[in-house]
């Protein structure tokens, strides 16, 4: 077989998205973007928009500021400005773009920071919106629907960001110390008290009562905006856990500084399984006794 055919078939196997796609949806990549742009500097990055429907659609590009809502998640400000406003500095050459069925367009987004910027971090989002699918023709009372994806853009104005914050809480998400089965959901809450976002990463390690590692999970690229408290939930361990376990968390920021090292212990007693086994043993013993009596 000629190499070019082998390459073709390998490509089809490796990238089947080229031959299959979801219907009536659109995809945006990256989901978020972190960049370093100095005051007075201009930087451009691309956002890829894929129209996954069977008809051409018009996508509208916009920019908004973001803030952290009451539960620590990022929300759009709907035209209002935040204290770390970036939206005014986000620019795109197009306000809207028509993308054919099953096609992808790459839209350049430019960050143009003026010399006067002094904040170490600026935050906003590029929005990509599209009106609902085939218009059913509203009559009487109806809702016209738009679907929108916001791509958070996190800009550090210096390469030497020094974040300030700590782990506020680490433990079993349910709050229980006695669980009936795995895997275990662990919640980590981090408070960023600084004026620039924290980019955290780290590791979760689950050890059994013998000190042997049962499972490990990597925490990658977890962002917490300034003046915000955010939680994340990670699951660790297999379904079949039994005994006492300890889960340890180690978090570092982008500079490598340790931001938290926590340990939580808990028991996993699969009482339903143990009950079934116990009943089974009792039944077997009973049967054996009956057989012996006969």
């Amino acid at each position, binding site marked *: 077989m000629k190499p070019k055919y082998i390459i073709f078939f390998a490509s089809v196997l*490796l990238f089947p998205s080229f031959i299959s796609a979801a219907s009536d949806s659109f995809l945006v990549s990256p989901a978020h973007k972190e960049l370093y742009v100095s005051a007075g500097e201009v930087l451009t990055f691309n956002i890829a928009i894929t129209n996954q429907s069977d008809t051409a659609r018009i996508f509208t590009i916009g920019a908004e500021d973001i803030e952290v809502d009451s539960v620590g998640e990022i929300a759009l400000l709907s035209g209002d400005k935040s204290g770390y406003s970036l939206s005014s500095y986000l620019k795109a050459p197009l306000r809207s773009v028509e993308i054919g069925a099953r096609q992808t367009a790459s839209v350049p987004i430019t960050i143009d920071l003026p010399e006067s910027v002094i904040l170490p971090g600026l935050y906003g989002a590029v929005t990509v919106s599209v009106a609902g699918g085939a218009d059913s023709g*509203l009559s009487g009372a109806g809702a016209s629907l738009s679907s929108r994806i916001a791509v958070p853009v996190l800009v550090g104005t210096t390469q030497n960001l020094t974040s300030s914050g700590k782990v506020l809480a680490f433990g079993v998400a349910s709050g229980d110390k006695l669980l009936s089965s795995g895997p275990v959901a662990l919640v980590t809450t981090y408070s960023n008290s600084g004026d620039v976002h924290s980019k955290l990463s780290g590791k979760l390690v689950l050890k059994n009562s013998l000190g042997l590692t049962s499972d490990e999970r990597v925490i990658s690229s977890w962002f917490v905006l300034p003046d915000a408290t955010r939680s994340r939930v990670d699951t660790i361990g297999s379904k079949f856990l039994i005994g006492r376990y300890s889960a340890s968390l180690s978090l570092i920021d982008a500079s490598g500084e340790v931001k938290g090292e926590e340990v939580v212990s808990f028991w996993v007693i699969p009482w339903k399984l143990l009950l079934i086994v116990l009943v089974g043993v009792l039944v077997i013993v009973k049967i054996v006794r009956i057989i012996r009596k006969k």
Partner: protein
Amino acid sequence: MKTLFTILTVVLFIAAPARNVLAIAASSTNYIIERDSINFAGSRSTSANFSLEDTGGEVSTGRGTSTNYALEAGYQQSDGYISLSTPSDVNLLPVITTLQGGAAYGSAVWTVTTDNPTGYTLYIKADSSPAMQSGANFFANYTPSGSLPDYTWTIGIGNSEFGFSPEGADIWSTYKDNGTACGVGTSDAVSACWDSITTTNKLVGKGISGNHPTGTNTTVRFEAEAEATANQAAGSYSAHIIVTAIAI
């Protein structure tokens, strides 16, 4: 045969990062390299008023997906993706009459799919207040009896209101219920927990981890009701609803 072996080796080398366990290139107690790259050129380039982050020399870059994996080949392909469905506009039925009033219903499903490790959030808003209008006439935004959504849709005598209720595996705790009230419990009763749609984004759903490739559905039920004595003016009423998905 040697050529075949060489090509397969290269292909396997490129495909290797598709496995989640290899998403981290290297780590120690105080550093994690999330991705690395073998290439001949590229980095951060700057001039007086321009910067560019590029990478050259990589082959077979780009995004590839299947039912079991997502591959983002290439150093600059690192920040994942998010997709959102685009449901069609919704007619609320049956038609509400001016003299007798009545309630009309409709629903739409939004599917969010992302490979973002910390999941996504889903918000809903309207672009006008009140949300449902027809010229100078309108249905008022739904008014829950307290700070939390109402478990059961209820409007006062002489009122006409428009609201929503979300359902799905990832709905936010405000819209979960215990069978009688919202904001408590972990249930997701059908047509329960009614709230207003305002011009401020309201959190309706939160996924805590990536859900590639299946995605997660959130159904949004809409209801408009004119109480019998509301004398709702005739007209074609419409609300522009914007649902936003964010992954970070």
